C-alpha cells in the first residue's frame, strides 16, 4: 500500500462518514427526547435521496438548482417527520415501547410503497454535483471536489448541533427532556411542540444525509433498511445519545469500509463492521462516548404472571389441526404448513423477548440461516434431506452462539439495535456470497424426499416437529432455567444479588431460541422447494415481531394465534394488491392507534371501564 492510496481511501471513507453521521445523529436525537427508536429513519434518508433527485430534475442541473434541491429535500423530509410525529407518534407516547417500534416499522412499509408508487422500482442515478464535479489532485490522484466538500459537512453539522444544544434554551429543554420529559412538562414546557421540533430536526438531518449522497449513490428502494442497520451500528458503537460518539463511530466505520473496498476486499466490509462493533462493545459496553443508561424512572408495569398451558385444550387443537388436510384442499394445507412454521418462529421469538425480556429485531437471522443451512447441507454437501433438515437448526444455533455472546452484553434498545445489525449482516452475507448462496436468486430445487412429497404428508411432519419445538420451549419456560430468565427480566440487580450469572442464562436462551427458529426455517425451506434472501431479511424479523405483538407478548399462546392470523392476512393481501406492504403497514398503524395499550391491554382497559364500580 502506497502512502498516496492510503490517503485517498482515508478521504473516501471520511466523505462516506458524513452522511452516516447525519442519519445517526438524527436517530440519536429523536430517541433521546421521545424514547422512540425510529425505525423509519432509514426511510427518511431514502426519501431525501429520491427527493433530491426529483428536485434537481425540476430545478435544473446548475449549482443553484443542485443546492436548492438538497436544502429543499432536507426541509421536505423534516416536514415528513413532523407529519409522522403529529399523525401517528403523538398518539402513542404512552404506549408500550414495543408498540411504538411496531408503529415506526409500519411507517417503513408505507414509505416504501409510497416511494415505489412515486418513483418506480428502477434505481435512479443522480447527476454529479454541478460546479464540484471536477477532480482535485492529491498526491497524484484525482478526488472529486464534491467528496472533499462532504468531508467538511460532517464536522460543521456536529459543531452547529453542539452550539444548538449547549447554548440555546431549546437545547437546554431538549437535554432536560432527554432525562425526564414528564418533569419538563410539569415545569410548563409544551412537550408536544418540543417533540415535534425535535422530530423536524432529526428527520431533516436524515433527509440532508440522503440528499447529499445523490451524486455518489443511486436512489434505490432497499436503502431504508440498509441505512437504518448502518445507523444502528454507528449508534451502538458511538453511544446512544452522544453526538460526538456518533461522529467518531461514523468516521471509524466509514473509513474502515473505504479501506476494504479500496483494496479490493469489498466482501470484508461486513466483517470489519462486525469486528469494530465487537471490540467496542467488549471494551465499552455503552459505546465509545456513551454512558450507562439511567434506570428508567417510570414505574414499569409488571407483566402478569405466566401460567403453564393446560394439556387437554392444547391436545384438542393439535388433533383438530392434524385433521384439516383430510377435508381441506391443497391451498389450505400449504397455508397451514406456513402457519405452523411461523408459529414455531413466533414462539421462539416470544421466548426471548417475553419472559426473558430481550427484544430482538433480528430474529429472522436464525430462521433464514436455518433455511439456508438446510438447503446447502442438502444441495452442496449432498446429505439426505432428512438429515439436512434436522442438522440445519444446529447451524443456526451456532450463529446464535456468536451473535448472542455480543447481544447479552447489552439490554433494552441497545440489544434490539444490535440484533438488527446482526440480522442485516447475515442478510448481506447471504445476498453477496453468490458462489455459495446464488445471491439474490436464492437456491432452488430444495425438495423433500419422496415419502414427504405429498402436501399433507409434509404438513403432518411439520406439525409434529414444530409441535415438539414449541413443547420444548414452553416446558423450558416453567423450568428453573425459565424462571431465572423471568427473574432476570424483572430485576437483573436482584438476580445478580442472589448469585445468579444472568448473562450465561440469557446467552443459553438466545441459543435455544435461535436453534428453534432455525428448525422453523429449515422446515419452511423444504416446504417451498426454494429459499431466497428475503427469509433472512429485516422484513422477516419484523413479521415475527408483529405476530408476537398481535397475539400478545404477555400470554403463552398469543404468538401462535398471532402467527396464524398474520400469515393468513398477509397471504390474503398479497393476492389482492401490489401495495400489500402499505396495506399491512396501515393496518398495523390502525391497530396501534386504536389500541394504544396493545390488544390485550386495550381489552383489559375496556373491561375495567364497563365493569360495575
Amino acid at each position, binding site marked *: 500500500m502506497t502512502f498516496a492510496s492510503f490517503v485517498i481511501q482515508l478521504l473516501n471513507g471520511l466523505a462516506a462518514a458524513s452522511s452516516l453521521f447525519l442519519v445517526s445523529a438524527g436517530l440519536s436525537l429523536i430517541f433521546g427526547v421521545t424514547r422512540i427508536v425510529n425505525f423509519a429513519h432509514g426511510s427518511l434518508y431514502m426519501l431525501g435521496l429520491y427527493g433530491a433527485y426529483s428536485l434537481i430534475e425540476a430545478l435544473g442541473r446548475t449549482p443553484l438548482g443542485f443546492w436548492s434541491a438538497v436544502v429543499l429535500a432536507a426541509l421536505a423530509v423534516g416536514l415528513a417527520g413532523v407529519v409522522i410525529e403529529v399523525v401517528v407518534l403523538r398518539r402513542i407516547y404512552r404506549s408500550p415501547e414495543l408498540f411504538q417500534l411496531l408503529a415506526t416499522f409500519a411507517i417503513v412499509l408505507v414509505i416504501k410503497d409510497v416511494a415505489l408508487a412515486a418513483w418506480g422500482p428502477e434505481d435512479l442515478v443522480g447527476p454529479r454535483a454541478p460546479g464540484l464535479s471536477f477532480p482535485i489532485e492529491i498526491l497524484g490522484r484525482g478526488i472529486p471536489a464534491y467528496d472533499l466538500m462532504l468531508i467538511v459537512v460532517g464536522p460543521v453539522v456536529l459543531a452547529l448541533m453542539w452550539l444548538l444544544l449547549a447554548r440555546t434554551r431549546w437545547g437546554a429543554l431538549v437535554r432536560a427532556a432527554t432525562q425526564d420529559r414528564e418533569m419538563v412538562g410539569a415545569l410548563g414546557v409544551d412537550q408536544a411542540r418540543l417533540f415535534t421540533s425535535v422530530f423536524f430536526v432529526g428527520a431533516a438531518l436524515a433527509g440532508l444525509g440522503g440528499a447529499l449522497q445523490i451524486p455518489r449513490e443511486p436512489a434505490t428502494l432497499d436503502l431504508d433498511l440498509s441505512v437504518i442497520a448502518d445507523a444502528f451500528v454507528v449508534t451502538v458503537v458511538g453511544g446512544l445519545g452522544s453526538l460526538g460518539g456518533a461522529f467518531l463511530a461514523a468516521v471509524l466505520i466509514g473509513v474502515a469500509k473505504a479501506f476494504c473496498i479500496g483494496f479490493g476486499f469489498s466482501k470484508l466490509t461486513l466483517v470489519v463492521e462486525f469486528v469494530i462493533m465487537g471490540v467496542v462493545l467488549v471494551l465499552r459496553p455503552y459505546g465509545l462516548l456513551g454512558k450507562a443508561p439511567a434506570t428508567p424512572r417510570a414505574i414499569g408495569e*409488571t407483566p*402478569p404472571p405466566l401460567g403453564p398451558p393446560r394439556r387437554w385444550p392444547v391436545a384438542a387443537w393439535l388433533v383438530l389441526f392434524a385433521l384439516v388436510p383430510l377435508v381441506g384442499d391443497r391451498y389450505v394445507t400449504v397455508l397451514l404448513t406456513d402457519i405452523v412454521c411461523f408459529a414455531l418462529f413466533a414462539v421462539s421469538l416470544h421466548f426471548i423477548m417475553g419472559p426473558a425480556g430481550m427484544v430482538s429485531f433480528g430474529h429472522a437471522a436464525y430462521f433464514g440461516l436455518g433455511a439456508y443451512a438446510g438447503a446447502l447441507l442438502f444441495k452442496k454437501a449432498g446429505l439426505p434431506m432428512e438429515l439436512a433438515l434436522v442438522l440445519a437448526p444446529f447451524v443456526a444455533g451456532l450463529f446464535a452462539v456468536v451473535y448472542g455472546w455480543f447481544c447479552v452484553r447489552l439490554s433494552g434498545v441497545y440489544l434490539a439495535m444490535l440484533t438488527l445489525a446482526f440480522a442485516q449482516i447475515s442478510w448481506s452475507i447471504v445476498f453477496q456470497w453468490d458462489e455459495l448462496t446464488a445471491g439474490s436468486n436464492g437456491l432452488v430445487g430444495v425438495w423433500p424426499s419422496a415419502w414427504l412429497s405429498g402436501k399433507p404428508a409434509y404438513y403432518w411432519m411439520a406439525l409434529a416437529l414444530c409441535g415438539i419445538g414449541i413443547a420444548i420451549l414452553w416446558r*423450558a419456560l416453567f*423450568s428453573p432455567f425459565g*424462571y431465572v430468565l423471568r427473574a432476570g*427480566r424483572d430485576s437483573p440487580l436482584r438476580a*445478580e*444479588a442472589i*448469585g445468579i450469572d444472568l448473562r450465561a*442464562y440469557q446467552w443459553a436462551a438466545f441459543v435455544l431460541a435461535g436453534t428453534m427458529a432455525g428448525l422453523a426455517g429449515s422446515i419452511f425451506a423444504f416446504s417451498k422447494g426454494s429459499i431466497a434472501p428475503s427469509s433472512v431479511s429485516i422484513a422477516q424479523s419484523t413479521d415475527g415481531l408483529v405476530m408476537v405483538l398481535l397475539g400478545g407478548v404477555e400470554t403463552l399462546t398469543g404468538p401462535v394465534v398471532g402467527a396464524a392470523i398474520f400469515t393468513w392476512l398477509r397471504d390474503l393481501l398479497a393476492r389482492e394488491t401490489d401495495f400489500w406492504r402499505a396495506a399491512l403497514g396501515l393496518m398495523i398503524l390502525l391497530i396501534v392507534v386504536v389500541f394504544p395499550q396493545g390488544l390485550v391491554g386495550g381489552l383489559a382497559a375496556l373491561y375495567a371501564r364497563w365493569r360495575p364500580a
Partner: protein
Amino acid sequence: MTAVLQVDGLHKAFGGVRAVEDVAFAVSAGELLALIGPNGAGKSTCFNMLNGQLEPDSGVVELEGRDITGMSPRAIWRLGVGRTFQITATFASLSVRENVQMALYSHAGKLRSLLSRFGTALRTEADALLDQVGMLDQADRPCGVLAYGDLKRVELAMALANQPRLLLMDEPTAGMAPRERVALMELAARLARAQKIAVLFTEHDMDVVFSQADRIVVLDRGRVIAGGLPAEVRANPDVQAVYLGSGH
C-alpha cells in the same frame, strides 16, 4: 470477638471528586452497625463497594478474614452475604414464595435444569422463611402487587435464604410509615441476633437508628467523622452540626 466484616482504608473518587476517603470500620457477628450521614456523604458509594457493585480505588474489604475487594455481587453472595435494596428489587411477576424459592434454588445450586418443573422443591424451606418475616399468608401473591413494606419483608426473607453471615441493608425502612419502620428493623435485629448474623445498614430515620443499632458510624463528605455507641454519637457536637441539627 472477631469481625465478620472488616473494612480498611477504603477510597473512591468519581471524576476527581473524592466520594469516599479512608473509611474503616468493622462489624461482628450478631451486631447491628448503622452507617449514617447527610445525603451525598458517601454512604451509598461505601455500601456499593461492599456489595460488589463498585470497585474501590484502594482499600480492603474482608469477609471473615477473606479478601473480597472488587469481587462481583454474585461471588459475594456465594460467600454468604445477603442484601436488601434501598429501592426494593424483587421479581415482580413471580409470587412471593417463588421469589424466596429463587434465592433458595440459587443457594442450593439447582437453577440449571431445563426440563424439570420449578417450584416443586424447597417449598417448605421457603414457607419457613416467609413465616419468620410474617409473609406466609401472602405467599401466593405476585410481588408486583405487594405494598412497599411487605416487599421489604420479602427482600429480608430472600437475603436470609442464603444463610448469610453478613446482611447489608441499604435504607431498609425508606418509604415506610413510622411504626412499620421500627417493626421491620426490630424483626431484622431479632433474627440477626438469634442467628449470629452481622448487620450493616444505612438509615435516615433517627428513631430507627437510635433504637436498633448497637453501634453507629457517621460519614460526612466521604470521611468517618464519628463512631461509637448511640449515646456517644448523639452527644457528639460534630455530628449535631453536620447531620442531626438541633432537633435531636
